[in-house]
């Protein structure tokens, strides 16, 4: 059963129940609890394709709860909790959705150690995974949003989940937070994309979430082998460049970009070595969607 098969009333009732709303995100089950009525509509719209996991054990138990601040006694605030702990400060009520999404991502980033967890976007085309590691100015979420509406399957805009034994990537197709100018860029380029409400005044400015395509969520249990690693950088008015990257540099950037590289030790070293040896590594500079799509299509058709 999918979240979209629940009425708004049923969704609200589940969110406020002891059992919570249990949702499957790739290999993880998350139990979400909240009494906040304003969270119901965006979740009903953006979580519509996710499977309910009523009978499965949840890895993450998260809540959005009201919070009183002595410094701001008249401002209604909310606190995100994971297993009863607050990993970051309270925020205004209108930021509930960003808080929930960031909170779940943070919980995954700091707790998951049975995958090597890269900070990157990952998409699949022609049966293989293209990794787009995050680095300052990469615009990975924006690029990822454009790709998944042009024939690429979304694995994740935030995490590359590498299984150490198989060397395969596992999908985790969660909502994709666009920020500031990227919101209008995607609205203009992808009028067919479904976006959530614009949430203003967050730590990262204005945020709006892209809903992953239904097909990507339906195939969230299908892993695939990686084949390309492309380090993107968006620079306004720059002509497209897609150049080979020395493998030693790719190793350095990828290893330092994994959340749990040091925790996993030698297994992580071996996994990154094997990943780099199996993949084509490129540096990408782009400024417009048309040329970057053409270049990445050519790369992934090869």
């Amino acid at each position, binding site marked *: 059963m999918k979240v979209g098969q629940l009425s708004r009333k049923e969704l609200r009732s589940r969110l406020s129940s002891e059992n919570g709303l249990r949702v499957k995100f790739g290999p993880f089950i998350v139990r979400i609890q909240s009494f906040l009525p304003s969270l119901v509509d965006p979740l009903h719209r953006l979580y519509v394709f996710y499977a309910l996991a009523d009978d499965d054990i949840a890895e993450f138990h998260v809540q959005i709860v009201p919070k009183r601040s002595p410094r701001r006694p008249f401002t209604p605030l909310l606190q995100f909790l994971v297993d009863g702990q607050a990993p970051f400060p309270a925020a205004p009520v209108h930021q509930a959705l960003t808080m929930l999404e960031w909170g779940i991502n943070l919980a995954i980033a700091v707790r998951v150690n049975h995958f090597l967890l890269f900070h990157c976007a990952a998409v699949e085309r022609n049966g293989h995974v293209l990794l787009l590691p995050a680095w300052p100015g990469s615009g990975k979420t924006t690029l990822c949003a454009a790709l998944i509406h042009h024939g690429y399957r979304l694995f994740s805009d935030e995490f590359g989940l590498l299984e150490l034994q198989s060397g395969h990537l596992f999908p985790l197709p969660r909502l994709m937070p666009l920020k500031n100018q990227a919101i209008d860029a995607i609205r203009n380029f992808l009028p067919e994309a479904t976006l959530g409400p614009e949430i203003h005044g967050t730590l990262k400015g204005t945020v709006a979430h892209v809903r992953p395509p239904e097909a990507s969520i339906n195939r969230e249990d299908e892993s695939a082998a990686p084949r390309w690693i492309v380090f993107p950088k968006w620079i306004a008015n720059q002509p497209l460049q897609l150049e080979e990257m*020395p*493998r*030693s540099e790719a*190793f*350095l950037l990828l*290893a330092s970009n994994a959340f749990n*590289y*040091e925790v996993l*030790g*030698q297994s992580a*070293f*071996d996994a990154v*070595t094997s990943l780099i040896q199996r993949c084509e590594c490129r540096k990408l500079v782009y400024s417009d969607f048309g040329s970057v799509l053409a270049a990445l299509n050519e790369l992934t058709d090869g």
Partner: protein
Amino acid sequence: MRVVDWDGEFTVFQPAAGKTHFLNEMGLRILIMLDQSPQTLEHLCQLLAEHFSLLPDESFMQQIQKTLYRFEALGLIASIHSPR
């Protein structure tokens, strides 16, 4: 230690510390030579100069000494006193 060659640059995994290091050929050769037997700075510079066909002048020796200090700080090597 695990060493992987990336066309003349090397990634080295140091199990005891769980750290990964990036070395050029000179850095790796220093580790290999010191792994084979302890060396004085002077003798090590002589061996390296022979291996890479370089002139073991003062500036070369200073560079190697700097590298040794760095390796020691990273726990890759340890200084020992020669027996009397």
